[in-house]
C-alpha cells in the first residue's frame, strides 16, 4: 500500500494546547510516526476548552489526531532515560513551551542534539526567543490584537473586530512550524545533519498577513475597514441579489472584468475611464459599486452564478456547515470525512488540505493520554537492547 511522504519519520512531540499539536497533526497525516508525549501529572491545557463530550474537550480531540499517545515523567531519572533512548530513534523534536521549560525537563537543544545530531529541533514561542516580550504568553486572541490582524476586519465605518473563530492564528503558526520542519528535513538529505528552528506566533501570523502589512509598509496607511470589499482589487465584494442573498464576485484580472461586463450586459463600462484598470476601479470603488449594485439586485443569486460561471468570473455564495457537510464538491474531493473517536463517537473533520497522487495522507483519531505507553516502552526496550527494527534516524 502506498504510504504518506513522511513514512519512516518519527516525531518526538512535546506539545500542548493548539499551536504545537496542530503542526504535529499535519506531520502525522503525512505519514510520520508522531509520538505525543505528555507529563503524567499535567492536565493538558486543551482539556479546558469548551465544548466537551464526556469530559473531553474539543481542542484535545480535534488537534491530536494522527498520533500515538505516551506519558513520560521527564523529571524522573527513569522517564528521562526512556525519553533519551526514544530520541535516538526520532527525526524531529517539536515543543511549544518556553525555553526555560526545555532546560528544566532536560530536553534543551544542546542535550537533544548531542543524543541525536540528525534531529530537526523546532521550538515555538509566542513572541520570539529574545526581546522585551519573550516571556509573555501568546495565544490566538492576544496575537490577533497585537499584530493588527483584528484591525483589518470589520464593517465599513466600524473599528476593527476579532475573527471570532479564535484558533486561526494558533493554527497559522502551527502551519509554519510544520512547513519549516519539512524544509529542514529536505535540507538534511544533503547535509546529513539536523538543526535548530525557532518559530514565533508573532512572525508566523504576520507572515500570513503579508499583503496587508506590505500595503502599510509602503503607504504608511493602516487599512480602513471595508466590510466585504477587498482592499486592493475591484470589483471584489459580496453583492445583494434580488432574492435577498449575497453573491461573492472577485474579478481581479482585466479578462475577468471584461467577461463580467459582458455577462451583465453593460459593455459601456469598458469604455469608462474611471473603470479602465484595476487601479482605476479601486480608486473609483464607490462609483463602481453604485453602478453594479442595482444590476446584481435585479436578478436572483442562482441566475448570476450561472451567468458568471459561463464566462469564467470567480463567484460564489455563502454555505453553512449543514450544507458543506453534504455538498458534492466537498464530498467528491474528500475534503471532509468521518473519524471514529472514543469519547466523541463519530466526528466529521477535514481530511487535510493537500491531496498527493502518489503518497496518500491518512487521518485517525486522537489517542487517549498514554494509550500507547506499553507498545512504545517495548520499542524503547528493544532499541536499548539493540534489537530494534528502527535504527537511529530511520528517516532518510
Amino acid at each position, binding site marked *: 500500500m502506498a504510504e504518506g511522504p513522511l513514512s519512516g519519520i518519527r516525531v518526538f512531540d512535546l506539545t500542548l494546547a493548539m499551536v504545537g499539536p496542530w503542526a504535529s497533526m499535519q506531520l502525522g497525516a503525512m505519514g510520520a510516526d508522531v509520538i505525543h508525549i505528555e507529563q503524567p501529572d499535567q492536565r493538558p491545557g486543551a482539556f479546558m476548552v469548551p465544548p466537551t463530550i464526556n469530559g473531553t474537550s474539543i481542542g484535545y480531540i480535534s488537534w491530536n489526531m494522527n498520533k500515538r499517545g505516551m506519558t513520560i515523567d521527564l523529571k524522573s531519572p527513569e522517564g528521562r532515560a526512556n525519553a533519551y533512548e526514544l530520541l535516538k530513534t526520532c527525526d524531529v523534536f517539536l515543543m511549544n513551551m518556553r525555553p526555560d521549560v526545555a532546560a528544566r525537563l532536560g530536553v534543551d537543544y544542546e542535550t537533544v542534539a548531542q543524543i541525536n545530531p540528525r534531529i530537526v529541533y523546532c521550538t515555538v514561542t509566542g513572541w520570539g526567543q529574545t*526581546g522585551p516580550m519573550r516571556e509573555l504568553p501568546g495565544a490566538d486572541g492576544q496575537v490577533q490584537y497585537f499584530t493588527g490582524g483584528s484591525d483589518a476586519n470589520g464593517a465599513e465605518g466600524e473599528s476593527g473586530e476579532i475573527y471570532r473563530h479564535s484558533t486561526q492564528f494558533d493554527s497559522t503558526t502551527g502551519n509554519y512550524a510544520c512547513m519549516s520542519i519539512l*524544509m529542514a528535513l529536505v535540507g538534511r538529505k544533503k547535509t546529513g545533519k539536523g538543526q535548530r*528552528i525557532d518559530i514565533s506566533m508573532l512572525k508566523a501570523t504576520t507572515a500570513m498577513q503579508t499583503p496587508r*502589512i506590505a500595503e502599510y509598509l*509602503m503607504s504608511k496607511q493602516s487599512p480602513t475597514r471595508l466590510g466585504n470589499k477587498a482592499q486592493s482589487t475591484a470589483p471584489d465584494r459580496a453583492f445583494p441579489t434580488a432574492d435577498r442573498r449575497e453573491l461573492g464576485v472577485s474579478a481581479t484580472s482585466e479578462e475577468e472584468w471584461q467577461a463580467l461586463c459582458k455577462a451583465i450586459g453593460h459593455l459601456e463600462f469598458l469604455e469608462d475611464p474611471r473603470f479602465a484598470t484595476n487601479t482605476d476601479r479601486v480608486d473609483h470603488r464607490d462609483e463602481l459599486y453604485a453602478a453594479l449594485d442595482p444590476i446584481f439586485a435585479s436578478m436572483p443569486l442562482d441566475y448570476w452564478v450561472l451567468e458568471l460561471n459561463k464566462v469564467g468570473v470567480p463567484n460564489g455564495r455563502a454555505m453553512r*456547515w449543514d450544507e458543506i457537510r453534504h455538498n458534492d464538491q466537498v464530498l467528491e474531493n474528500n475534503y471532509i470525512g468521518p473519524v471514529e473517536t472514543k469519547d466523541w463517537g463519530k466526528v466529521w473533520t*477535514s481530511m487535510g488540505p*493537500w491531496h498527493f497522487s502518489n503518497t496518500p495522507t491518512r487521518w485517525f483519531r486522537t489517542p487517549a493520554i498514554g494509550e500507547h505507553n506499553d507498545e512504545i516502552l517495548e520499542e524503547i526496550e528493544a532499541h536499548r537492547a539493540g534489537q530494534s527494527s528502527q535504527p537511529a534516524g530511520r528517516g532518510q
Partner: protein
Amino acid sequence: MAGPLEGFRVIELAEGVAGPYCGSALGDAGADVIKIEKPAGDRARGWGSRAKGDLGAVFQSINRSTRSIALDPDSAEGAAIVKKLIAGADVVVADAGFTKHPDLQPEALLAAQPKLIYVNLTEFGEEGPQANLPPYGELVAQLASEATTSLGNIGEATVRLGNDNASMYAGIFATQAICAALFAVDQQGGQKIDVSLFGAMLFMRSTLWVALSNPDFWWGFHLDSYVKPPEYGYMCSDGAIMLSLNGVTQEQRDAIYKEFDMEWVRDDPMFKMFNEDTAGVGRYAHVVRPLWDKGLSKFPMDHVITKMRELGGQAWPKNTYEMMVNSDQVKFIKMVQPVETPEGPLDQMVPPWEFADTPAEIQRPAPRLGEHAADVLTEAGFTAAEVAAFKSRGVLANT
C-alpha cells in the same frame, strides 16, 4: 547554504496570491524560483499602494526571491521554452488553467519526468462540479467555507476577513506539500498534488466541524462565534485593548475592581454575571462589556495593561499595523528590514522561520516583468543567438 532548499529549482506558472506566495516562500528558503508570466504580467503587479515605482505593495511582498520571464505559454514557441525550463526543474507550481497547451498539462509533464513534483492550485479542488477552477476567488472561498459567519452581525451585510486568508493558507499548504514530496521523491517518485483555496479554509476551520458533533453543551468560542456580536475590544481613554480574565481568582478580581475604581459595579443588577464571566471569550462577555468600558475608559491603555497584568489578568493593546511595526518587540527582533529595489529601499518582513544552520533570507526583490529572461534561458542551455532570435521575434515579452 542560502537556505534549506538551496539546489532545488521551481517553475511557477501562477499569479495572484496563492501560487506566488508559495514560490516566494520557496525562494526565501533558498530554492531557485523561475516565475513564468504572460505578456501582460501577473494580475497582481499593480495591487496595493504604488508609492514605489510601478510595482504595487502586494506584488512586491509576495514575489520576492523569484526571477521573471515573460512569454505566451499557449504559443508553440512559448510552450517549448517552458517545457525545456521544466525539464531542468524539480517542482512546478501552477494555477489550474494557467496554460491550455497540451505539452504543459500535468499528465504529459509527469509522464516525461517521473520525478517531477507538480502542484495544481485550484479554487475548489480537482473533482466535482466545480473541478479545476483557477485559484483567484479569495472572497469566494471565504463565503463557501462559512468563514464570514465569524465576523460582523447576524442579519447584516457580510464582513470578510481583511486578510487574504484562503489564498495565503493555500500558498502555505502548497509549500508544505512540495517540501514533503521533495523529501520522499527518491523513494516514492514524483507526483501531482492538489491544493485548493476552499480545501485550505475547510481544514483551517476543522475545529468547528468537530465541535458541531453533538457536544454536551452548545457554547464556547468554537460554537458561539456564530451568534456573538463583533468584538471590538475594551475601551480605555486612548484606545481599545484585549482583556481576558481566564483563570483569575476572586481575590484578584476584587483587587481589579478596586484598582480601577469599579466598586460601583457591585451595585449593578448584572454584577453576578459580571463577576463570574470570563472577560474576552466568556459566554456573556459581550453582555457585560459596557460595565468594563465604563470603568476602564477613565484610564489610558498602557496603565490598564500594566495593572491588569500585575493583578493576574491578560491585557493587550489593540494595535494597528503602524503600532505593531513600531512596537519595541518588533524592532528588537528586526522583523522589518529594508530590501534594495531599483526604486530604493523597500521595507519588508523577514521570512517567518529562523533556521540556525541554513539561514533563510530574502534573496532578491520582486522581479520586473521578464527581467531575467536572458539569464534564465542561457542557464537552460539556449544559445545567445537563440535568445536574441526569441527577442527579435517577440517571443519574449518586455525584453
